[in-house]
């Protein structure tokens, strides 16, 4: 089958607003890494191989010299534990991906790409080229943004001043709205939102996403069981 360039282009175009909003974040990351004494080449290597914004910010915050290898590895694992849930859900939409490239495709499992892909999968099978388009655009942006920040090494000010930090929240809210279709989703959102907010305020570290996500999934599981039982009763 020929590579679907039109889908690749569509992926790049869909993710472009996110890429644009992420440029100052990449620059900021490179700058912070440089301030912690991480060499520019090492910061770029980290962005290219880890490719996970939130985890990298947390890691750089914890960074000391020499680097606490075990603490960093473990912390990054915890911050990224949400990927496990995301990956299980995403794997269901990989029917059109050749099995051999699936492990490589999982490397691009970034919150933003994944959210767009799940939204696209609501309408029909996910075209692999759409995924590659988003993933490669995001990766190039993240690596080059880091490089610019690290090599220029100057403070670029606080992205919050321009509302860039809110662009990610706003993007996720917009995608989230598309998932709200039944009252059960409302119950899922209420439980995951309150659990995550509560965990953020009470549990140190970055557990809140996993805690909130699990709370929402658990509620969906329980509600489905109840509905299934009711349907079974109705059949009797």
């Amino acid at each position, binding site marked *: 089958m020929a590579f679907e360039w039109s889908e690749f282009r569509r992926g790049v175009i869909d993710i472009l607003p996110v890429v644009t909003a992420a440029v100052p974040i990449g620059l900021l990351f490179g700058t912070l890494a440089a301030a912690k004494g991480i*060499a520019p080449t090492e910061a770029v290597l980290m962005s290219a191989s880890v490719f996970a914004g939130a985890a990298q910010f947390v890691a750089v915050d914890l960074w000391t010299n020499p680097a606490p290898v075990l603490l*960093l*590895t473990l912390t990054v694992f915890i911050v990224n534990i949400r990927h*496990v849930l995301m*990956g299980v859900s995403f794997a269901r939409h990989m029917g059109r991906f050749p099995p051999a490239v699936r492990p490589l495709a999982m490397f691009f499992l970034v919150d933003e790409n994944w959210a767009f892909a799940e*939204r696209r999968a609501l309408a029909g099978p996910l075209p692999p080229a759409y995924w590659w388009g988003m993933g490669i655009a995001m990766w190039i942006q993240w690596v080059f943004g880091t490089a610019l920040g690290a090599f220029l090494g100057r403070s670029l000010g606080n992205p919050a001043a321009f509302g860039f930090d809110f662009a990610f929240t706003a993007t996720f*809210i*917009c*995608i989230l709205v598309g*998932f709200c279709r039944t009252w059960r989703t409302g119950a899922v959102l209420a439980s995951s939102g309150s659990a995550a907010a509560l965990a953020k305020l009470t549990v140190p570290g970055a557990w809140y996403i996993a805690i909130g996500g699990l709370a929402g999934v658990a509620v969906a599981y329980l509600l489905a069981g109840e509905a299934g039982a009711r349907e079974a009763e109705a059949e009797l």
Partner: protein
Amino acid sequence: MSAGYVTELAIAGMAVATYLTRVSGLYLMRFMKVEGRTKAALDAVPPAILMAVIAPVAFATGPAETAAAVVTAIAALRLPLIVAVIIGVASVVALRHLFGS
């Protein structure tokens, strides 16, 4: 000289840890029957995770962020994504100014 080596080791550890979280879903799927309650639970993953990601900013940061989140959600009901995001970002800047945060 050893500091450089330790840095590379830390980066490798972070990269492997992250990739493991990303790829594990692919293999966990093989042991799951996607039907009934399991399907309902998996269908809830995107909204549950997205909500968990935004909740601290939307509900536990400040009045400006909470109000801007509501504005964004309302805009997203009617408008294309990019327009709603721009409205959301503009409103957070205005509201932060208003609330003095």
